[in-house]
């Protein structure tokens, strides 16, 4: 390869797109490092505090797409207080100052401001794609800037963000001449939208493939929108009240029948049961169905819909579907690859909607299943062993038994053997979440068998430090380890400090780790940022909406970094 001119090598590298592979080829030799540097188009930064924008620009001066992730995963569950960090502003400012021709920005769990969005919209002439997932800190004013200024915008994809909805006219800010929209997802906006502006925007967007509406778009508007965009591939219907006798329903049915390219359906936030039948004509083409917000649709209607969806690859649903419903899924959806079953009753009210039987049925009926997230009230070792035998191809296996420490409900044993069977059978397992009553034994199994495991979530599990040590010593590919309410302490934390350099991050909350132990770790490993989130302040408890008498505990979050201590930490974060 050294005899080829750089342009040829670069052309070959163009076919290498995965981040891991590009990282690998950059390590081969100096000349490849240099060629790869200048030709890297997509940069992925899993922890925004592991590196600085300046270092990024120095290494990759020509990238077009940047993915940044901020807060740790447990921030999704309110374990990280407001103001912790993950601010995108310094990144946008640095990129704006440079000559990078940014076209795509994807952010997850970051704090974004209207000023940042405005700066973004004005700084990059060819900006095409903005994807914000679980972000916060901005309002529809920021969206208005993006709409007004990004002439070549293709994607505006807002997934589950906390957006301050000023009910303004951000949709009307797209110029009349603007016709390049491909993706528009504003399902997470709470307020009313300008329906006229929306319809005109959709009507002048022939390339529109993905449209996800919020709950404020009524049925008749939905019918008109679908009629304007029969080429739609991915549709989120927002609110969907049942209007059995109205003209709108007929218009909707007619419009749906024309949407022959429709492959993905979601939304139904306030849907009444009878409405789903309007979609039956297109079900046979659907590959992705997300009914996990449709709390008002009960089992039988869900089942009627799913019976038509023989090509389904991805299904997100609520546990109101029941074991019977999952049996229907198992017998209908032979192409199913990913299943997520979410809980409707979050307070453990005893409604056993899905049990281990549903999980076993799915594992038996769906040979292509590789990713599962399953919330349930009860589980048995026998069921998990059967699931492991039926489905050795799991890449992601996340089981959440709603009651902490709950054992096998038949034998009253811990669920060590069940999860042990999963990790032993599933040789490609990359992500695992465990729950229920678990001793150190399960971690022995995980350390022994889960050789490809990259992310592990542990809650209310284990007996002694040995548990955590089995994992740290055994799982060579571990990148993210997050632990809560488990009896692991300083001995486990400090046993192998160098291990943390091979990982992106470690989270431990409500464990047995002490401040002294963390300080010792910080001293031994200067390449780590060791942060303690200190929440002993009562005022802060109220701010974060804590109810009544909650446990108050401190949290450890450590991560490798090449740029040392961050400067934007709030007072309640101690960086050791």
């Amino acid at each position, binding site marked *: 390869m050294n005899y080829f001119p750089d342009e040829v090598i670069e052309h070959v590298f163009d076919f290498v797109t995965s981040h891991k592979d590009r990282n690998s080829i950059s390590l081969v030799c100096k000349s490849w490092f240099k060629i790869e540097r200048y030709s890297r188009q997509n940069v992925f930064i899993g922890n925004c505090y592991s590196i600085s924008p300046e270092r990024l620009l120095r290494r990759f001066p020509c990238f077009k797409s940047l993915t940044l992730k901020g807060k740790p995963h447990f921030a999704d*569950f*309110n374990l990280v207080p407001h103001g912790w960090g993950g601010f995108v502003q310094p990144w946008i400012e640095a990129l704006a100052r440079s000559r990078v021709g940014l076209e795509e920005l994807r952010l997850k769990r970051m704090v974004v401001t209207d000023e940042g969005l405005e700066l973004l919209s004005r700084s990059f002439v060819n900006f095409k794609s903005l994807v914000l997932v679980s972000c916060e800190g901005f309002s529809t004013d920021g969206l208005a800037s993006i709409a007004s200024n990004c002439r070549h915008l293709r994607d505006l994809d807002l997934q589950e963000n906390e957006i301050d909805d000023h009910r303004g006219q951000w949709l009307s800010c797209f110029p009349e001449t603007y016709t390049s929209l491909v993706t528009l997802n504003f399902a997470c906006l709470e307020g009313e939208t300008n329906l006229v502006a929306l319809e005109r925007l959709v009507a002048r967007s022939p390339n529109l493939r993905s449209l996800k509406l919020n709950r404020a778009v009524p049925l008749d508007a939905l019918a008109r929108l679908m009629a304007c965009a029969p080429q739609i591939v991915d549709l989120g219907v927002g609110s969907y*009240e049942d209007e059995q006798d109205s003209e709108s329903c007929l218009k909707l049915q007619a419009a749906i029948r024309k949407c022959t390219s429709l492959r993905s359906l979601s939304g139904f936030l306030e849907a009444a049961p009878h409405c789903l039948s309007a979609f039956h004509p297109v079900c046979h083409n659907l590959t992705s169905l997300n009914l996990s917000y449709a*709390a*008002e649709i009960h089992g039988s209607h869900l089942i009627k819909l799913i019976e038509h969806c023989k090509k389904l690859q991805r299904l997100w649903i609520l546990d109101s579907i029941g074991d019977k419903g999952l049996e229907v899924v198992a017998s209908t959806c032979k192409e199913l690859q990913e299943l997520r079953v979410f809980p409707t009753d979050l307070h453990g009210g*005893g409604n056993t909607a899905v049990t281990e039987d549903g999980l076993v049925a799915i594992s038996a009926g769906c040979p292509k299943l590789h990713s599962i997230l399953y919330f349930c009230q009860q589980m048995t070792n026998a069921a998990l062993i059967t699931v492991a035998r039926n489905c050795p191809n799991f890449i992601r296996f996340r089981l959440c038994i*709603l009651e*902490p420490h709950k054992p096998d409900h038949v034998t009253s044993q811990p669920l060590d053997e069940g999860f042990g069977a999963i990790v032993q059978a599933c040789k490609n397992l990359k992500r695992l979440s465990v729950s229920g009553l678990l001793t150190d034994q399960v971690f022995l199994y995980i350390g022994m068998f889960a050789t490809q495991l990259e992310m592990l979530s542990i809650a209310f599990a284990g007996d002694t430090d040995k548990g955590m040590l089995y994992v740290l010593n055994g799982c060579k590919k571990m990148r993210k380890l997050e632990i809560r309410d488990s009896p692991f302490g300083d001995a486990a934390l400090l046993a192998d400090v160098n291990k943390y350099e091979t990982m992106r991050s470690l989270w431990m909350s409500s464990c047995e780790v002490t401040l002294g132990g963390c300080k010792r770790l910080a001293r031994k490993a200067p390449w780590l940022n060791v942060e303690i989130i200190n929440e002993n302040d009562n005022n802060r408890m109220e701010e974060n909406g804590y109810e009544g008498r909650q446990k108050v*505990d401190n949290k450890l979050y450590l991560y490798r970094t090449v740029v040392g201590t961050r400067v934007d930490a709030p007072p309640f974060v101690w960086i050791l």
Partner: protein
Amino acid sequence: MDEFVNLKATELRLGLPGTNNVCEERVSCNSNSNKRALQADAENETETSPPRKAQIVGWPPVRSYRKNNIHTKKNESDLESQGIYVKVSMDGAPYLRKIDLSCYKGYSELLKALEMMFKFSVGEYSERDGYKGSDFVPTYEDKDGDWMLIGDVPWEMFVCNCKRLRIMKGSEAKCLGSGV
């Protein structure tokens, strides 16, 4: 900074508050875990609505966005069912509405809400004469399929028996409104 390590009193533990309690709780947690589980199972079998469990922060691991969107209309009470939604139609209106009867404590709140929703007023209720002073009369369909005047029976009985609401207007209303 090292001196802090030795001062147990001021030591900041990454665990439950109260040092000794932590150890005890953890030990009892694990050694009695089987026993506790059996007891818990027995509880679940005998009680129809289990006691409200203490809320653990961040558990179950469901994104707050999802929690907020599933529970927009629900009350945070274990005794409450999923909300009692009934359709409301008004003669002459182009589409129906839905309301959650469990949101209201009595007839006056319900009627006020209906008045606001459909921009009308019901007039004065009396047991003898029904609703006087308005063309609109609020009625409901009960479990037997009969159309009844709203306000005659105690509120709780009404909520249990009400299948849907209808705001009648005009001559039809006059018949019902002025007593059977």
